[in-house]
């Protein structure tokens, strides 16, 4: 029984106090894939320990109801726990209420997440279908073009998935930049980013009070963009990705690419816009972190995520 309480406590710490320091490690994108893995491990670790803790609680309750209040009382207060305390109606009712409330919350959360996921899948499928019926194929690519002056480029997951471009985006992009945009979107699809994004978005929407969910939503989305940027850089080069981002961000063609060759002399602190996703992406592409910094961040993140995957089991064994 003590194991259940320890695991629940661990889940609360991960959900409430981990996000801020973790975001400091991952926010600037010095280490993208370990960063993504760390956020997903935090979610998994918190969820698994919460579920195991809850399951302990329910099992004890079912095994012998009158004993539950005694066990809870003893695991908290030890020998100071007397029959007068755990036998009292108030204590029994309190423990019962907490156990039922925890179960109810878990069920509601699971139900809400499931419903949201279903709705999201339906809307996404409908969007992809409409894009296929309305869009014109862009010769030489799998992309679909919709007529609209606003510069927009995105992909829709599904079978088959779709990459959608507006006529407006084609107007502001040079050929190399268009390749970079397509490579970015293909990377999103190949690396299953839409799944990660919809999972974290669903959690944040279903249970907005948990800080870990809100943080994971924003940080996973941002890291997914950076991961796709890296893939695009490998295909079309840094300059094309940077200038494409600027062209779409400002809605004006960028032909002078000297901006992308802005040297490492740009001090990171001088840019200082890391709080926002798009400026942060631009910053890390123009002035990427050095290899030593990247290695240090990767090491820290891998250590952290390994700890999060192992800790619930260790805690359960130690306390059980």
């Amino acid at each position, binding site marked *: 029984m003590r194991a259940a309480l320890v695991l629940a406590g661990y889940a609360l710490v991960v959900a409430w106090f981990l996000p801020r320091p973790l975001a400091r490690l991952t926010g600037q994108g010095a280490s993208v894939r370990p960063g993504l893995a760390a956020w997903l491990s935090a979610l998994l670790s918190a969820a698994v320990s919460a579920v195991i803790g809850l399951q302990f609680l329910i099992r004890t309750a079912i095994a012998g109801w009158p004993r539950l209040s005694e066990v809870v009382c003893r695991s908290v207060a030890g020998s100071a726990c007397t029959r007068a305390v755990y036998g009292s109606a108030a204590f029994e009712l309190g423990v019962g209420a907490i156990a039922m409330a925890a179960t109810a919350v878990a069920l509601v959360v699971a139900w809400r997440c499931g419903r949201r996921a279903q*709705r*999201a899948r339906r*809307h*996404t499928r*409908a*969007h992809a*279908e*409409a894009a*296929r*019926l*309305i869009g014109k194929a862009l010769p030489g690519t799998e992309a679909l073009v*919709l*007529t*609209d002056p*606003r510069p*927009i*480029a*995105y*992909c*829709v*997951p599904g079978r*088959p998935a779709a990459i*959608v471009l*507006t006529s407006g985006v084609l107007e502001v992009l040079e050929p190399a930049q268009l390749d970079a*945009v397509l490579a*970015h*979107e293909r990377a*999103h*699809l190949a690396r299953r*980013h*839409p799944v990660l*994004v*919809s999972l974290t*978005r669903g959690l944040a*929407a279903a249970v907005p009070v948990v800080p870990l969910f809100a943080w994971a939503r924003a940080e996973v*989305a941002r890291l997914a*963009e950076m991961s*796709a940027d890296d893939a695009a850089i490998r295909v079309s080069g840094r300059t094309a990705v940077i200038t494409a*981002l600027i062209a*779409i*961000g*400002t809605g004006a063609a960028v032909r002078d690419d*000297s*901006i992308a*060759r*802005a*040297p490492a*002399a*740009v001090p990171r602190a*001088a*840019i200082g*816009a890391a*709080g*926002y*996703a*798009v*400026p942060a992406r*631009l*910053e890390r592409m*123009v002035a990427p972190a050095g290899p030593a910094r990247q290695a240090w961040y990767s090491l820290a993140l891998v250590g952290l995520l390994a700890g999060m995957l192992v800790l619930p089991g260790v805690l359960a064994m130690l306390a059980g």
Partner: protein
Amino acid sequence: MGLRGFGDLEAVVMRRLWDHDGPVTVREVFEELRQDRAIAYTTVMSTMDNLHRKGWLSRVKDGKAYRYSAVASREEYSARLMREAMAEADDTEAVLSHFLAHMDSAESDALRAVLLRLTRKTGENAQ
């Protein structure tokens, strides 16, 4: 252009329907499509039936046959898609991965400030 799959045929049929002013029968669409591809009448019929079932086409009985027409114009569907694509992530159910996510005015300002610093920096270096 070859026929790549059923989804592709749906797109071809919808385009025909949008190009017509009034409702058309399966037979009429079939006769048009037959001009530039080998296709069976039943294929066209089931494609149009699918599109009707999915809510893209409406149909009214005319004698023995149905006459089909598009539920909304191509422009209306396009506007609907763009509305969904432009919405902030929280306001839309569809999962779309943008090259550049919706920016609020504060983020746009931050981006502009970064660009300004970068261009000034490169300008100085060039001198």
